[in-house]
């Protein structure tokens, strides 16, 4: 069977999500119960709180996914779930839910890597052309992944400290902006100017790795020093300057990687791919009439969701990989 209908589940962080995808391309339904409002008051995702809400929301989310796709379990060919990486307690809820479904209806169980999910969100809006390069940027990840062909993933660069989304959240906190920080800084930056020369961590000449902790400290120091001297901090300018530094580094890495690996396509995905400045800069660097096609999934497929897990599960299905009933959550799972 080449177009299996897959029910996919994702609970690696703070979104309880389920979706049904056919053949890795056609989205039949996509439900996300977000916990952002719940975690806002804590200033970040609290693992124990996230796990509790996953248990509470999971079965209702699945039922809604099934009914809005107008399918029954008879119509499903497999159950897929995010195996890792992520918060272990959160992953375990999705994994055990998926196993119970697979067992109850005697369907195969497909284990999916969360980052592969982010990448294959692109399958839902375009045809990925290999060799392809993916830049996955989110609160938990900053990775450059080279894909020589479908189902092969080679991490060529990663963050050595903070994920880019983490740096956004920390800078936002210092500017006393609410969580999550990304959209807030993006919004401020749109009304600001790049007036401060924050550092760009270029690292070694041939490296595709990232480092954002120096930049983050530099922003924190700048604000601290300004406050000490009782100088006014123009938040919009700090945001714009910080964002300019982040975007410069992301674009440079992506551009260098795409040309070194002769990729036909660049996929930019993950929650931070929603960022306006990043989208604009990538659009300029990889124009429509250029050699390299730029694919950025829409916001709803960039942030955590299960549709992307269903799309990536198609690759797992094609490779004939199946999980046993002893499937566990793997918080530090590597992509391969």
């Amino acid at each position: 069977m080449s177009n299996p209908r897959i029910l996919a589940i994702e609970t690696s962080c703070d979104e309880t999500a389920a979706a049904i995808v056919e053949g890795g391309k056609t989205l039949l339904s996509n439900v996300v119960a977000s916990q952002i409002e719940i975690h806002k008051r804590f200033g970040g995702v609290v693992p124990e709180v996230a796990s509790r809400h996953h248990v509470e929301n999971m079965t209702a989310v699945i039922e809604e996914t099934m009914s809005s796709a107008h399918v029954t379990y008879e119509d499903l060919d497999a159950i897929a779930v995010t195996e890792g990486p992520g918060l272990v307690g959160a992953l375990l809820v999705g994994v055990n839910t998926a196993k119970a479904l697979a067992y109850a209806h005697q369907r195969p169980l497909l284990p999916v890597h969360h980052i592969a999910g982010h990448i294959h969100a692109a399958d839902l809006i375009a045809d990925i052309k290999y060799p392809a390069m993916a830049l996955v940027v989110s609160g938990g990840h900053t990775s450059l992944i080279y894909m020589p062909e479908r189902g092969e993933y080679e991490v060529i660069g990663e963050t050595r400290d903070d994920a880019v989304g983490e740096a956004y959240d920390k800078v936002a906190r210092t500017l006393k902006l609410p969580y999550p920080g990304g959209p807030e800084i993006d919004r401020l930056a749109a009304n600001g100017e790049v007036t401060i020369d924050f550092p760009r961590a270029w690292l070694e000449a041939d490296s595709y790795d990232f480092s954002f902790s120096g930049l983050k400290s530099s922003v924190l120091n700048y604000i601290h020093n300004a406050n000490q001297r009782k100088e006014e901090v123009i938040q919009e300018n700090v945001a714009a300057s910080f964002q300019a530094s982040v975007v410069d580094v992301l674009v440079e890495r992506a551009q260098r990687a795409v040309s070194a690996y002769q990729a036909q396509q660049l996929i930019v995905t993950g929650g931070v791919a929603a960022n306006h400045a990043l989208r604009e800069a990538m659009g300029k660097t990889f124009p429509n009439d250029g050699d390299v096609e730029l694919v950025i999934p829409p916001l709803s497929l960039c942030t955590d969701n299960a549709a992307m897990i269903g799309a990536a599960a198609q690759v797992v299905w094609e490779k004939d990989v199946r999980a046993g009933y002893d499937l566990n959550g793997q918080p530090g799972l590597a992509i391969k």
Partner: protein
Amino acid sequence: MILAMDTSTYVMGVALGNMDAVKAEWTTYEKKNHSLRLLPGIDHVMKSINSDPSELKGIAVTSGPGSYTGVRIGVATAKTMASTLDLPLYDISTLEALACNRRFANGFICPFIDARRGQVYAAVYESNEGELHTVYKEKLWLMDDLLAVLAEASTSVHFLSLDIDFHRENIQQVLGSTATFADPVDRRVKPGEILRLAEKIEPVANIHAFSPRYLQLAEAEKNWRKAQGYHE
């Protein structure tokens, strides 16, 4: 036929059957993640009696108190199976299931689970011809407070817990010879008892809303409430 499961402590148990007959029972004692063993265990007991999910008539689960992660694995599995197979779901207290191991005892029956920092999740029951009646409802106790309450009652108290050894000295000091301690075989939940309890109660009314008995707010929630000026 009901499928019962318990993942609230490091001992994990699964059973199949009903009030009239336990058809299969499986218990493991390894201190490993339940996610590795729960569904293989269910599959194992089902196969051992040549049964499959279509023959199930209900799902029963201990919903805590206990290890948060452990209980979540059991509850997520049980509520998913009940919801997806449209079966009644039975919510059983881990402490009540444990207390059943002494359900013909005279005096008080006190199952507990260590909750660190001198605290225990505990309840106190009394038996009447094998039926348990609640004397003190399950809650998070300071062990010292619980023992003070039990000392006043001046009746014999039967303690059941996998964590007996952490508290034995303290218990003996306060209660002396009125305290008795369950043998190792009775310190854990017997999955068959979950089946028996399930048949005496109404199923969960709203399966989607079903959640573990944590008996405590998450740490971050506690701190937040404190900062907001709530009083516990």
